[in-house]
């Protein structure tokens, strides 16, 4: 509810004190009220007794007057002789003297003399009966709708001749007279039971709002005879109901004496006022006191709170320790904790942003550099350069991990020294990232070249000097691109540079393609294989000795409805990466076997060569399936593999090659001379054929060195018992040179391009068993046809 401790303490203290004061005040008030009520009740009770006396006194006074009249000889004579005039004058005289409202005579016959308003029969009879039944009948009765206190005295002349009746109206003036006689300021009201039995004030006293309650109160009050509290318009009163004797007996009227409670409480008002004042003063003192106390108590806590807030926001905080108590200790502990947190935070931040091996900033840090640079860009573009240390793995193998890491750090330090604003991080094992700004891509490339030049001087490690060179991939930030993407692109650009053997490459989006697209390419390829979207093309292999086409290489082609012809390099590479190469090879092999059988039917018993990916070379399952298929069909199939295919797992690969050879499947070593050719493997592989890479053959006619290489390779192969196929034969000259070199087979555009099976059949029909020269002419023609 309250966000401040100080407020809470103040509110709590003041609240508790206020409650205590309230309770005390309430008790005092209750006691005083009770006391006042009891006092008033007692006074009222005794006043009631006094009122009885007064009432009696009044009655006696009237009676004395009446008796006096009744006994007056002249009056009696007047009554006895029915001297009306005398009677009236006597009554008038006494009425004035005694201040009466009514004075009249009722004679033995019930006749009434001296009453102005005639009384109805029933009332007159009732009056007569009441008078007759009691010698000195007195009480309250109603005459002409007014309530009167009535007394009577018999007129003896000398026997009972009638009664003198005096009546005093019970009106406000009479009540006022009664009230005046009381010791305490009472209010008196006469209430009377009405026809329905309810008690109502005689003169419609407006003080009583609730007639029902008043009636009930009087009913109970008459029964118990004690003063009790009653609510009236004028507030709460203590009231006492005194029964008034009715003329003729019974109780039909009552005198209600009341005393306002407020008046009873009036003498105590100063006491209550004093209690309230003392209470308010007390609350003020408590508020002030608890405020000061809470302030002293909470100030160090507030300081701690503020410090904690600052700490949360990463601020450098320390709270002064002022006291030796719990709060002081807390502040001390807080300071220690804050310091430790800062140290830990720095360590964590450092770890998060640095490479553990080299202690150089890491990839995350590089991204921060990029973000900062982009944010601060002033029209210049932010460039990320991925600096690949060439031959790092070899160097590391040579000098060890620790020194390799030192080498990286040294490179970073040197570049850092040369370029003051250098922001360098380690992106990968052998790759450093470098963030800088440039006006355009050209300037970025120039800068990258400068970086390379920085490493012209060897780096010294442990006293030894190590040569290091950099291949650099560059990616520039373009709007809307994520930092992540920029860094990745720089890395990709590095790969692209290495793939194309350049020193510096700017990221080439077209060459890279889209990884997401590649993934869909694979699934599309699988769909296409099932739906006939792929096919095999055959490229003829010409036997230079026999002068005829004795074989063909099966090459897979894929025409996609959306993409058109998809380059084999693209989808085969993709299939290799994604593991789909197996399914693709299965399919190509099946097609090759089918085609081989079909061509055999057509009279051309050719050896069909199928390229087997290095990934499948140690795949026993594939090998068994392939052997079953080829054997089952008795097809003449040759597998073209590269030497590097056996490097990964030579034992298994060589065993499987043996299995192929045993099954009658020829093995051809493909692309010989392009990769890392190893004579060791060449020796171990049970191959029948060696295919010289086209890079050598294409330049055969021009380069003396190439011709030498080809010639010696042919000799080498022959000496190992291998046939030699030259790839990339595009000219008659090359063909002629190869023939003279003793090459066995030739493959290339000059012989025939890869062509659909149907075209190949036509090709074969058009060139059956022809001589090389004749073929050459044909091929020249077909070259113009197909180009």
């Amino acid at each position, binding site marked *: 509810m309250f966000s401040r401790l100080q407020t809470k303490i103040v509110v709590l203290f003041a609240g508790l004190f206020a409650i205590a004061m309230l309770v005390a005040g309430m008790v005092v008030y209750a006691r005083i009220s009770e006391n006042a009520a009891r006092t008033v009740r007692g006074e009222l009770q005794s006043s009631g007794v006094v009122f009885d006396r007064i009432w009696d006194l009044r009655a006696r006074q009237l009676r004395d007057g009446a008796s006096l009249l009744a006994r007056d*000889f002249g009056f009696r004579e007047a009554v*006895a002789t029915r001297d009306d005039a005398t009677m009236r004058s006597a009554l008038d005289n006494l009425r004035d003297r005694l201040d009466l409202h009514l004075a009249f005579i009722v004679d033995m016959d019930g006749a009434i003399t001296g009453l102005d308003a005639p009384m109805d029969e029933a009332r007159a009879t009732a009056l007569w009966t009441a008078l007759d039944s009691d010698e000195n009948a007195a009480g309250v009765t109603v005459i002409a709708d007014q309530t009167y206190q009535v007394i009577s005295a018999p007129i*003896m002349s*000398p026997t009972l001749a009638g009664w003198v009746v005096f009546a005093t109206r019970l009106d406000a003036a009479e009540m006022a007279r009664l009230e005046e006689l009381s010791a305490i300021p009472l209010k008196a009201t006469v209430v009377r039971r009405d026809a329905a039995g309810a008690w109502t004030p005689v003169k419609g006293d407006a003080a009583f709002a609730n007639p029902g309650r008043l009636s009930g109160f009087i009913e109970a009050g008459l029964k118990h005879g004690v003063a009790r509290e009653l609510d009236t318009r004028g507030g709460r009163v203590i009231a006492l109901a005194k029964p008034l004797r009715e003329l003729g007996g019974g109780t039909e009227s009552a005198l209600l004496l009341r005393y306002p409670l407020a008046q009873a409480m009036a003498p105590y008002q100063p006491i209550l006022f004093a209690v309230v004042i003392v209470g308010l003063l007390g609350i003020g003192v408590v508020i002030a006191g608890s405020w000061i106390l809470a302030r002293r108590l909470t100030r160090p806590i507030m300081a701690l709170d503020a410090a904690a807030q600052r700490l949360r926001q990463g601020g450098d905080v320390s709270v002064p320790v002022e006291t030796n108590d719990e709060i002081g200790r807390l502040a001390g502990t807080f300071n220690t904790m804050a310091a430790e947190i800062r140290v830990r935070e720095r360590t964590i931040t450092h770890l998060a942003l640095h490479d553990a091996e080299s202690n150089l900033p890491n990839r995350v840090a590089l991204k921060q550099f990029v973000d900062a640079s982009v944010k601060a860009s002033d029209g210049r573009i932010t460039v990320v350069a991925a600096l690949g240390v060439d031959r790092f793995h070899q160097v590391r193998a040579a000098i060890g991990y620790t020194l390799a890491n030192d080498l990286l750090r040294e490179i970073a330090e040197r570049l850092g020294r040369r370029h003051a604003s250098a922001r360098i991080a380690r992106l990968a094992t052998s790759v450093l990232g470098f963030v800088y700004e440039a006006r355009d891509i050209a300037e970025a490339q120039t800068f990258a070249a400068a970086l390379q030049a920085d490493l012209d001087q060897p780096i010294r490690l442990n006293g030894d000097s190590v040569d290091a060179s950099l291949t650099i991939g560059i990616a520039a930030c373009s709007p809307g691109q994520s930092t992540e993407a920029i860094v990745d692109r720089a890395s990709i650009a590095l790969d692209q540079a290495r793939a194309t053997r350049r020193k510096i490459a700017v990221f080439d989006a077209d060459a890279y393609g889209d990884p997401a697209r590649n993934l869909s390419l694979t699934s599309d390829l699988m769909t296409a294989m099932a739906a006939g979207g792929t096919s095999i093309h055959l490229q003829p292999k010409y036997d230079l000795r026999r002068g005829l086409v004795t074989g063909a290489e099966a090459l897979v082609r894929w025409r996609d409805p959306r993409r058109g012809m998809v380059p084999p390099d693209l989808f085969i590479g993709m299939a290799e990466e994604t593991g789909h190469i197996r399914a693709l090879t299965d399919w190509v092999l099946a097609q090759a076997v089918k085609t081989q059988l079909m061509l055999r039917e057509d009279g051309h018993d050719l050896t069909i060569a199928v390229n087997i990916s290095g990934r499948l070379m140690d795949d026993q399952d594939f090998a068994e399936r392939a052997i079953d298929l080829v054997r089952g069909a008795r097809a003449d199939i040759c597998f073209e593999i590269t030497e590097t295919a056996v490097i990964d797992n030579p034992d298994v690969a060589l065993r499987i090659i043996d299995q192929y050879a045993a099954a009658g499947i020829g093995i051809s070593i493909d692309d010989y001379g392009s990769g890392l050719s190893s004579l060791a493997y060449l020796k171990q592989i049970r191959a029948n054929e060696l295919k010289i890479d086209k890079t050598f053959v294409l330049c055969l006619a021009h380069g003396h060195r190439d011709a030498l290489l080809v010639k010696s390779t042919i000799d080498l192969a022959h000496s190992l018992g291998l046939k030699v196929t030259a790839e990339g034969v595009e000219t008659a000259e090359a063909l002629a040179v190869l023939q003279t070199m003793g090459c066995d087979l030739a493959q290339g555009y000059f012989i025939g391009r890869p062509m659909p099976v149907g075209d190949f059949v036509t090709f074969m029909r058009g060139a059956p068993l022809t001589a090389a020269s004749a073929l050459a002419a044909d091929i020249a023609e077909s070259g113009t046809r197909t180009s």
Partner: protein
Amino acid sequence: MFRSALIAAALLWSVAAHADDLTVTVRGRAGAPVENAVVTFRPAAGVPAGPIRFDWPMRMAQRGIAFDPHVLIAPVGAEVAFPNFDAVRHHVYSFASGNKFELRLFGRDETRSYRFMTAGVAAIGCNIHDRMSAFVVVVDTPYAAKTGPDGRVVLHGASGAGAFTVWQQDLRAPGNKLTRPVTAARTAAGESVVVDLRAAQAAHH
């Protein structure tokens, strides 16, 4: 505090030794005999002519601040003496219509008299002593007498048909009296009438 109470009274009518006597017994309803009730008889044939005399003195003495007797039957025209045997004075008066008189402040052994000329009951009082009360029953018939302590009265010679009247100061009836017809036949039991009596009021005595 005084209250009226109704007491039933029975009149027992007994026939005397002589056939021409009228015997009346007055009793309250509870059976108590009523003393000092005046019974008068008027024959249907009319009251015999000639002066009426009773065998008791025509005197209303004041003795011990009281009238003696309490009830005196007097014939019309009788002069009643009011001798005062008290040491104090009395102021004897009556407001009875036709018999209104006032005998003022006479002293001890002083005797005044008044001649009652009108038949009827004259209530006698003393203006000095309210408690003093007496009645002079002025009659115009010779057949009149007071009941004794047994409530019984015998009217000698009251023969023949007629009507008898019972008066008593507290008898609850107009004029404090009751009139009953009676036949010529007299029975041993006499006549009886039930009347209500007003309870005696202290001030009357």
